[in-house]
């Protein structure tokens, strides 16, 4: 890096300037729609009667586009598996990682003990209420995994059971698919939420199978994020 005005930098800046012009024309000519497009209007009108969920985004993610969400969870699983594979081959010998760390300190250890149950409870609250409030399985799962991250920070040498995490993950994934297949048998199609009664609109036990599916997604996402964090933590010796 002798000169800042190399050919490379000029090329990058030209490219970004062109992109900026494209963005500018896109943004300056943009006027927001006055009303919803047909797909969105259909979701807005029929979510309450067809799905029974207050949160329209949840209805789209879990039921209308449920297959996509199954694919998304699969992609996440694949990511966790590849991260474990890539990092597993460079794993530090047992005992060498973790033991070299300084103790994490009284404040972090005690704080973790106090906060961890609350964080886990909050995560469960977020994914159980996914059909009523902003939130859902992915957000709740991320909160669960943040609790695991706190645990990893407080006790760097600790190993949690890989087996428990992978059991939770595969069981919730299997049940998710099983509920989807039940939708074919008992209701209108794969992942149809009407295999359970829709219940009173706006109550916690409503929207058919959505709370169940979102709880399963929450557990699965939490387990996947935890296994990614754990793979990253176990190699932390360099």
């Amino acid at each position, binding site marked *: *890096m002798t000169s800042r005005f190399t050919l490379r*930098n000029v090329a*990058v800046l030209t*490219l*970004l300037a062109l*992109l*900026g012009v494209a*963005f*500018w024309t*896109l*943004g300056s000519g*943009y006027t*927001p*729609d*006055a*009303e*919803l*497009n047909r*797909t*969105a*209007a259909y*979701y*807005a*009108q029929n*979510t*309450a009667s067809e799905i029974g969920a*207050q*949160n*329209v*985004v949840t209805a*789209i*993610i879990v039921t209308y*586009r449920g297959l*996509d*969400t199954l694919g*998304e969870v699969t*992609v*996440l699983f*694949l*990511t966790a598996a*590849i*991260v474990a594979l*890539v*990092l597993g*081959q*460079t794993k530090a010998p047992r005992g060498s990682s973790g033991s070299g760390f300084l103790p994490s300190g009284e404040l972090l250890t005690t704080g973790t003990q106090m906060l961890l149950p609350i964080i886990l409870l909050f995560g469960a609250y977020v994914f159980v209420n996914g059909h*009523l*409030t*902003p939130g*859902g399985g*992915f957000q709740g799962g991320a909160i669960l995994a943040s609790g695991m991250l706190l645990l990893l920070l407080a006790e760097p040498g600790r190993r949690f059971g890989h087996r428990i995490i992978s059991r939770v993950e595969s069981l919730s994934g299997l049940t998710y698919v099983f509920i989807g297949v039940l939708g074919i048998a008992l209701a209108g199609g794969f992942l149809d939420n009407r295999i359970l009664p829709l219940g009173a609109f*706006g109550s916690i036990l409503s929207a058919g199978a959505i709370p169940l599916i979102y709880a399963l997604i929450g557990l699965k*996402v939490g387990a996947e994020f935890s296994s*990614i964090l754990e*793979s*990253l933590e176990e*190699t932390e010796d*360099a």
Partner: protein
Amino acid sequence: MYLVAMAAGFLLILMGLYGALTHRNILRMIVGFTLADSGVHLVLVAVGYLPGRTAPILDSAVPLDEAAQRIIDPVPQALVLTAIVIGLGITALMLAYAYRLFRTRKSLDIAEFTELKW
């Protein structure tokens, strides 16, 4: 308001791409990519916003029969939720590969990985 969000999103995309293209340290390139990722999310959410409407949650603020006139577009929000999750997966993968490269070659400088250069 949506214009502010959209401009910020476009700016984040440009900043992220600039960082990813000019920096030589792989970790800085990853940070650039995640910045551009956040920018794309911001722009997508801003496109779904309709002035004067409320969030797509059918609570007491939204009468059910007027829902289509009262809520903003829920589809971009669902898309962005998916994009955030996949973006996290991509970031985790990039970091894992960067770690692997560092372990095998003791360097994070992209200029030292010349196998794919032509």
